[in-house]
C-alpha cells in the first residue's frame, strides 16, 4: 500500500532528528519559565497561544516558500500531482508535525496547572499541589483544540506563502497576519460582550485554543460555559480548510510560479 503524501512531510521531519529535537525543545524552554514563574493566567495564556500559532504559521509558510524557490513544488506539479492534494498534504502533515512538537509543551502547561490545583487564578498564584479538579479534565479537549488551531495556523501559512515573494517577506507576513488574527481572537484583550470584537473572537480560529490555555493556566477545568465555544470553534479551521482547498490551484500556482 502506498503511503499518503502527507506522510512524506512527517517522515522527512522524523529523519531530521536534530531539527526535531530543537522544535520540541525550544517551545518547552519558552513555556517552562512562564508556567513555573507564576505569571497571571491571562498573560501566560497569551504567550502560549502566540507561541503555538506562530509555530504553525511559520512552520507552514517558510518551507512552502523555500520549496517554491527551489523548484521542488513545481516539479511535483509538473509530474502530475494534484494542487489540492499537495496543499492538503502540506496542511495535514504540517499540523501533525506541529502537534507532535508542541504536545510536550502543552502537557507541561496542563501538568503545572494540575500541580497548582486551581491556585493559579486570574492573578496568578503560588505553585503547589492543588486540591481542586484542576485542568486535568481539559486534557481530553486539549488535543482536538490544539489540532484545530494548528491546522488553521498552517493554512494561514499557505496564504502567506502565496502572498510573499521571498523568505523574508514570508516571515514578515506570517508574523503580521498571525498577530492580527490573534488580536481578533481575543488573545491580547477581552472584548466587551455583544461587541464586534466579541463576534470576531467567536469566529476566528485561534479563540478556542486561547480559551483552553487560559483555563489551563488558571488551573480551571472544563466548565459548561467554555465547552460549547471550544467545540464549535473547531468549525473555523474546517471552513478555512474548505476555502483553501477551493483556492488551491491558484495558491500553488503562485507559490511555485517560475516567473515569480
Amino acid at each position, binding site marked *: 500500500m*502506498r503511503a499518503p*503524501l502527507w506522510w*512524506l512531510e512527517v517522515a*522527512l521531519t522524523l*529523519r*531530521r532528528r536534530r531539527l526535531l529535537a530543537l522544535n520540541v525543545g525550544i517551545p518547552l524552554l519558552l513555556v517552562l519559565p512562564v508556567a513555573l514563574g507564576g505569571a497571571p493566567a491571562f498573560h501566560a495564556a497569551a504567550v502560549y497561544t502566540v507561541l503555538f500559532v506562530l509555530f504553525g504559521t511559520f512552520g507552514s509558510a517558510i518551507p512552502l516558500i523555500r520549496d517554491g524557490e*527551489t*523548484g*521542488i513544488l*513545481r*516539479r*511535483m*506539479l*509538473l*509530474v*502530475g*500531482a*494534484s*494542487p489540492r492534494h499537495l496543499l492538503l498534504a502540506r496542511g495535514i502533515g504540517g499540523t501533525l508535525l506541529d502537534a507532535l512538537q508542541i504536545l510536550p509543551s502543552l502537557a507541561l502547561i496542563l501538568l503545572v496547572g494540575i500541580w497548582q490545583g486551581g491556585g493559579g487564578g486570574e492573578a496568578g498564584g503560588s505553585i503547589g499541589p492543588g486540591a481542586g479538579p484542576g485542568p486535568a479534565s481539559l486534557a481530553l479537549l486539549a488535543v482536538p483544540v490544539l489540532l484545530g488551531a494548528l491546522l488553521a495556523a498552517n493554512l494561514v501559512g499557505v496564504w502567506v506563502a502565496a502572498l510573499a515573494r521571498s523568505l523574508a517577506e514570508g516571515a514578515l507576513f506570517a508574523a503580521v497576519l498571525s498577530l492580527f488574527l490573534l488580536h481578533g481572537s481575543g488573545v491580547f484583550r477581552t472584548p466587551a460582550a455583544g461587541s464586534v470584537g466579541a463576534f470576531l473572537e467567536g469566529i476566528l480560529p485561534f479563540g478556542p485554543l486561547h480559551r483552553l490555555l487560559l483555563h489551563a493556566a488558571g488551573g480551571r477545568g472544563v466548565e459548561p460555559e467554555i465547552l460549547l465555544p471550544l467545540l464549535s470553534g473547531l468549525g473555523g479551521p474546517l471552513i478555512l480548510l474548505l476555502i483553501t482547498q477551493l483556492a488551491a490551484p491558484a495558491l500553488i500556482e503562485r507559490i511555485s510560479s*517560475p*516567473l515569480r
Partner: protein
Amino acid sequence: MAVRARGLGFRYPGGRVGVESLELEVAPGEVVALLGPNGSGKSTLLRLLATDLRPSSGTLELLGLPAERAGPALRRRIGYAPDDPVHVPPLTGGENLRLFTWLADEDPEDPSLGLAALLQAFDLSDVSGTPVSQYSFGMRRKLLLAEALAPRPELLLLDEPTVGMDPRGIDALGTLLGERARSGTAVILATNEIREAPLWAHRILFLHRGRVLADAPPEILLARLKGRTLVRVTLEGDGVPWEGGAGAAPGRAGGEGRGLGPREAANSPEARAATEGFGPFQGLGPLEGLDAMEGVEAWRFHPEAAGPGQIEVETRMGGRVLPPLLQYLLDAGIGVRELRVREPDLGDLFRALTGVELEDRP
C-alpha cells in the same frame, strides 16, 4: 499528434522573446532534437510543452488536448526533465524515484515500470540508498532522467539531458530513447550535442532568437555540408604579424555564396571580440593572400580563440589543401603550431545560417 503548435509565442515579463511564431508538429514515436545557442528558446519551448509556462500567443495541443486546460491528468502523460535537477534532498535516490513515479499516478512497485533497471542503466543502483544531497551533479541529472522516464510517458521532454553526464550515461540515454521511441513515445530534447543529436533524432530543429530556422532530418541537413572540409590552423606565438592598410576589419570570409559562413558572420561582433586587444589591427596582412589560394573556399578567425591565433579554412579539396596551405603560411612568415582537419557538422551549418556559434568547440 503528440505536439501541435500553431503560431506559438511566449514573452517573458519585461518583454524578452522566448519563442515567436513557432510551428511544430511531433508525431508519436518521433525523436526531435532542438539545437540552438543559449537564449535561442530551446528551454522556453520545452517549458511550454511541459505546461510550465503558458503561451502568450498561438495555440498548443499536447497529446490531443489544448495545453491551456492542462491539469494533473495531462501532466501525468508527459515526462519532463528540466535543466535543473531538483529532488527532495533528504530522500535517497531510490525514494525520489519512487516518489515521482507515485506522483505521476503510477505504482512504483509495478515491475513493468522497471525502476530497478532504470537505476542500473544510469549506474545508480549502488547509490540508490544514498540521500540525494550526497549526489554529484551528474548523478542528480541521471536520477532526474530516470524519474522522467519511469512513468512511461507518452511525451518525453528533456532539457540538455547530457550535461554533466559521463559517456556511459550518454550511451545509456541514447539506448533508452531509442527504445521508448520505438514503443511510441514522442521525444523532444534540447541539446547542443552535435555528435549525438544526428544519431538520436529523426528531426533536427535549429532555433535562433525564438524562431525555427530549419526543421529537417539530420541526414538532409548534413547533406548540405557534403564535400566540404574544415582545417583549423593554430598559429605560433601571438598569431599573425599584422600590417597593411588602415581601416580594414579584422576577420573576413569568402565572397557571397561561398563557404559556410556569410561575410556578416566573419565581421560579426563575435569575430571582432575574438580579435580585440591583439596588436594594431590595421589590416589582414599576409592572410589576405588566402583569398586567392586555390582550394580555399573561405576562411575566418576562429571566434573562440583567445586572439587571432587560430584561423579556420574551408575547402572542397579535403586533406589535399594542407601542403599548399602550410607552404603559403610558412612563406608568409607565419609559424604553424597545429593543423586539424575535420568534417563540418551541424554546428557549422548553424553558424552558416545565423553567424552564431552553437557551442564551444575543443
